[in-house]
């Protein structure tokens, strides 16, 4: 069982060495999310109405711009093959890879989203709810992304194809995530969207690694 913590540590260490790749996603997130307060800053009601979609959209863009980094470098240096040839279950190994990728690429977004939320006149407990929404939606998005990245590993310029796979799968997350933030800020009962997001997160973390592992086996052939 030592292999799982080992792979986890290795991937975190490697992503620290490739920090500029991961910073790209965060810069994208901050840029997109901060543009709206800068342009249309003073109207508090308007800000409250758009923060939901903006948060989700910037998370999506941030994950889009860096999603190739999850498997492509490992495919090129050959360590992905060794993962497939390991005596351990590939599903488990991929789960660990996705988890450590989420920590290095999306956990910073959760932290930064609290600062961005205050630029949208969001205060108090609502900031926590914004962070929770970003946390729940990025965990789901990272699973969808890794599946799309694995499916297109063998394609030389996968940009358009990957987006086509991603779009329908991530749409529900965007809709329910925006609603979760909107309802929280308006003071309505937001438990419905949050239940949905949590469900999607659990579903994607249980099925995502299996589907991704399968896609990797096909792509590596």
């Amino acid at each position: 069982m030592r292999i799982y913590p080992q792979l986890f540590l290795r991937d975190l260490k490697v992503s620290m060495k490739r920090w500029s790749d991961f910073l790209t996603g965060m810069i994208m997130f901050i840029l997109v999310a901060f543009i709206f307060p800068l342009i249309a800053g003073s109207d508090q009601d308007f800000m409250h109405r758009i923060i939901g979609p903006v948060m989700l959209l910037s998370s999506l863009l941030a994950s889009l711009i860096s999603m190739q980094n999850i498997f492509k470098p490992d495919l090129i240096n050959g360590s992905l093959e060794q993962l497939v040839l390991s005596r351990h279950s590939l599903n488990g190994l991929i789960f660990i890879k996705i988890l450590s990728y989420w920590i290095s690429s999306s956990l910073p977004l959760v932290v930064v989203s609290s600062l961005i939320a205050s630029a949208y006149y969001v205060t108090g407990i609502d900031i926590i709810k914004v962070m929770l929404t970003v946390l729940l939606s990025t965990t789901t998005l990272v699973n969808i992304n890794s599946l799309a990245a694995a499916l297109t590993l063998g394609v030389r310029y996968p940009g358009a194809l990957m987006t086509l796979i991603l779009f329908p799968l991530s749409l529900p997350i965007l809709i329910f995530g925006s609603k979760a933030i909107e309802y929280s800020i308006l003071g309505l009962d937001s438990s419905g969207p949050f239940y949905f997001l949590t469900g999607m997160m659990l579903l994607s973390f249980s099925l995502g690694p299996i589907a991704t592992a399968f896609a990797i086996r096909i792509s590596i052939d």
Partner: protein
Amino acid sequence: MQSGVLQLQSASLYRDEQLIFREISFDLKGGDHLIIKGNNGSGKTSLIRTLCGLTQLTEGSVLWNHSPIDDIGSNYYQHLAYLAHSNSLIPELTLLENLTYNLHRTDLDQDHSVFEEFQLKQSMNSPVANLSNGQSRKAALSFIIMSGKSLWVFDEPYANLDSQSIVYLNQRIAAHLSDNGMVITSTNREEAVPTTNLEITMS
């Protein structure tokens, strides 16, 4: 060393209707060394990848102890150490970190004499990206030698190696074979390989 039998039965591989190889069969037992010879592009790497289960055969089957390797999965992979064209090292990490996080390592207290023999001791703390091609190749070879697995599969192991390292590698292969291990080597440098009883020439 506990060993098994690797069998390839009338294997054929087509890629996009194009024939890569056809009707190849062999039995590999403990102590056997199979050499796959052939020019560039003759299908050596494809054959080796099918033996590792990375590429699916169009016809025929790969058997480990008389069971298809796709069915037994990890029971096969726990015996297999595969050196690909790429060295499977992570360029951002140092050689020592690559060793620490190597997924196939079974024993923590391995002797590091392989690194000494390959003259890698002084490079242990430099990132793999800074090593020369030959040094990375030797590092990847040492991981296989230290893996403690019974079936070693090498794709062009002699590429970029200096003559001293070739001699040492052949010594380790001979030692592994006499320990009842199995080795499969593909090469187009026939002068480097020791003579063996099993040989396939691809064309």
